């Protein structure tokens, strides 16, 4: 029997854990409708605010990071909240809820003052949203106006603002989108918990600067000869997002919607294993379209089946018991690097890496085959990361008599 992908988050049922994050892909009802038709369980409409909050965009607003042949390892944007009028957003919500009653339609909101937040909640709730997400986390543009990550970086402000929203919401759950740009993201999550809000989204983009044009000296993106810092998303930020989700899950009892670098069902499964209940996707959808949901759900379902799980719920948090403080890590196991001579392409990359970045434990003979000296190898794990052949250089328990046995 196929495993169930259905999951409940903050009391709202999602037919699968995959949600379109607040982003350009959710900036109008036509796009979201296509996303729903493709199979997305929910969508968080692009962040909206009250009419008085003027949105002045600057173009170009996006720039990618390439590494060798791989494009868009990361994306930087200096986009702001939606330019669309709140009236239009309300119309979109009504239409989407009518056309897709089983899909989760959420709004993302951002306000400058208590009255703004309250008005936004009132109007969107009335329009029929299932969930409200508050951005306390946008790292560019908004903080200089006291909004976005300026709120999320201050636990007291986070608690106070979250409480305004939660108190205003009569019907729907409220979740707070957090910034990773804070010393301890669990502290921010605790503040949300204290406010009474229902859940958190982690993480918003990382504030960054994508690069500098070596000819013009203008950083990217070049907006008429000037640039500014932006929000970094995409595969490169996944490790930061995973860590943030794990830290919150281990310390705070609050539902988590994870986002940050999800490109495949594998990434999503990792977030779920670390305690997230839903997973939001933005950059990969922008790049390859709503259709990417097909393999995300298919792959996740097959994975659950392969692992003998009957539902996504069983997966959630399974990795958390394996995370401890560094001082608590076991010290008695010994592993050593091992080269598979059948797979080795004799490039010598591991030899150089161990020589100049490790313990001089790899020998490279006239036959160009890398050999590990188990007496010198400490099992640091660096060389496998350099091998161009997957599964050729691996870590294995040390041979008998070489070091101590793996516990």
């Amino acid at each position: 029997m196929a495993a169930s992908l259905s999951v409940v988050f903050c009391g709202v049922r999602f037919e699968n854990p995959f949600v379109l994050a607040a982003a350009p892909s959710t900036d109008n009802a036509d796009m979201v409708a296509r996303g729903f038709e493709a199979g997305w369980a929910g969508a968080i409409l692009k962040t909206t605010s009250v009419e008085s909050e003027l949105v002045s965009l600057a173009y170009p607003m996006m720039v990618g990071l390439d590494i060798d042949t791989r494009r868009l390892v990361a994306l930087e944007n200096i986009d702001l909240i939606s330019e669309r009028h709140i009236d239009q957003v309300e119309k979109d919500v009504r239409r989407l809820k009518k056309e897709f009653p089983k899909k989760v339609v959420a709004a993302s909101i951002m306000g400058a003052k208590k009255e703004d937040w309250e008005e936004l909640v009132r109007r969107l709730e009335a329009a029929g949203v299932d969930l409200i997400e508050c951005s306390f986390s946008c790292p560019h543009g908004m903080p200089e106006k006291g909004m976005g990550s300026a709120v999320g970086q201050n636990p007291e402000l986070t608690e106070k603002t979250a409480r305004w929203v939660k108190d205003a919401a009569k019907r729907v759950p409220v979740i707070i989108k957090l910034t990773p740009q804070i010393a301890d993201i669990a502290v921010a999550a605790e503040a949300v918990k204290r406010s009474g809000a229902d859940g958190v989204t982690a993480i918003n983009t990382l504030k960054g600067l994508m690069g500098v044009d070596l000819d013009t000296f203008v950083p990217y993106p070049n907006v008429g000869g000037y640039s500014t810092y932006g929000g970094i998303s995409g595969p490169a930020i996944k490790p930061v997002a995973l860590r943030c989700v794990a830290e919150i899950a281990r310390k705070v009892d609050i539902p988590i919607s994870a986002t940050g670098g999800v490109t495949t069902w594998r990434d999503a499964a990792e977030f779920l294993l670390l305690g997230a209940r839903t997973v939001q996707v933005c950059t990969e959808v922008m790049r390859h379209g709503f259709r990417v949901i097909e393999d995300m759900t298919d792959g996740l379902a097959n994975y659950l089946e392969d692992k003998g799980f009957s539902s996504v719920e069983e997966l959630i948090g399974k990795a958390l018991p394996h995370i401890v403080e560094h001082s608590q890590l076991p010290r008695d196991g010994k592993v050593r690097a091992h080269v598979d001579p059948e797979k080795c392409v004799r490039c010598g990359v591991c030899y150089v890496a161990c020589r100049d970045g490790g313990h001089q434990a790899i020998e490279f003979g006239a036959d160009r085959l890398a050999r590990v000296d188990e007496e010198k190898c400490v099992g640091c794990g660096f060389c496998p990361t350099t091998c161009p052949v997957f599964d050729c250089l691996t870590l294995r328990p040390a041979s008998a008599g070489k070091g101590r046995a793996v516990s």
Partner: protein
Amino acid sequence: MTERVTHDVSLSPRQAAAEAGRCLFCYDAPCVKGCPAGVDVPVFVKKVASGNWRGAARVIREANVFGGTCARVCPTEELCEKECSSGLLGGPIPIGALQRLAWERGTAGATAGGARGAVADLGADAGTASSGKRAAIVGAGPAGLSAAWELRSRGWDVTIYEATDKPGGQLDWTIPSYRLPSEVVAAEVGAIVAAGVKLRTGVRVGREAAERLLAENDAVILAAGLGAGRPGGAPGEGRPGVVGAEEFLARARESRARQGGSTCAAGAAGAAGDLAGKRVVVVGGGNTAMDAAVTAAGARATRVTVLYRRTAREMPAWPREYRGALAAGVEFLWLAQPVAFEDAGKVEGGGQGAGAAGGPVTAVRCGRMALGAPDASGRAAPRPVPGSEFTIEADLVVMALGQGPNQEIVEAFGLAADRAGRPMVDPSGRAQVSVRALPAGQASKAKVFVAGDLGSGGATVVRAVAEGKKAARAAAGELPPSAPRGEQGSNGR
């Protein structure tokens, strides 16, 4: 000299950087060993990946003063790319294409000096402090020029003696211009000459001159290339319309140069008038035969047929060249060899009909061959099939059976030679000069080295360059080579 490949697949800088990014940056990289000139491939490829074009071109030039030429004609598939570790993964790094782009972009910077100036700017400090040593170099092809560059950069007083009226050798002679534009050669040759190498063209070195060169120089490097094409031996080979591949290719290049064309070999008409409407038969299965066939096809010949006595499997031409010929519409007649070249009157041999050579060729009488047991070359030996003769029409026959060494030079310097007439040399390229080249009782002052096709019997440009370099280093007393350069050890030469 046989050169086939042209890296005309132009990569954009970003594509090149992406391809270069796949380079594993091997330790003691196999590709470097695959390069006769020992170009530090991973180092230049990494510079391509980082967009350091000038640096990349400099690394290439450090090892190969004809880096731009070789970027066009080097058979990288058979050399560096064949050794590439990535070949076992997603496919080899396209080193040749990267070298071409590195060269083009790395030399594009200079403005005042044009390409030549830009090339020279990349060079080492050629012609610095004088070493007080003198060298004579015979032959201004890639081997001789490479040797000249190496010695000049060590402060030697270098003079090149070239029999023709300009430097470049085969680079500017038989390599089809669609493979190697004259400007590329001119820039690199010009940079070498500009470094202070004395060039004397139109000088044929005979016995007397040889004697003088041996007496007046510290080193003499013989890089005079190949001599006449080998004859096939069938009757009628002297007829008008039967030409050697070298002559055919040289005229094609000359003709194209006159027309100022740049992309095809339409000027091949030189050897036998306009090839439009003509049937061309090329005899031989080597890379030069492929060049001749493709050149003829490019000159609008109606039909081009390569006649080879073995099959595609045994053919010495590289697969890529064979594919190129097929793509050009060349036909191949395997297991066949000419037994006579006929004219309209079917008169065999010379001495009758129109003049001593007979009338112009109109047909090739061929005999079928069968393959037997392997011969000394390890390939199946072809033997004639009795009673199998047939005739194909031909308006032009190009003989591409290889060339022998330049006997004039071997004799002038009294070099000890093997049975094939090639001078015998030690691993550094040093040759033995027999006493008959010198006045009685007088020993040669100069050490004598052989480099390039004169010794190899015909190989690649890059090998000629490498041999010129090696001979120069041996002359300067630097062989065996000093320890591998750099800690990476990727340059083992």
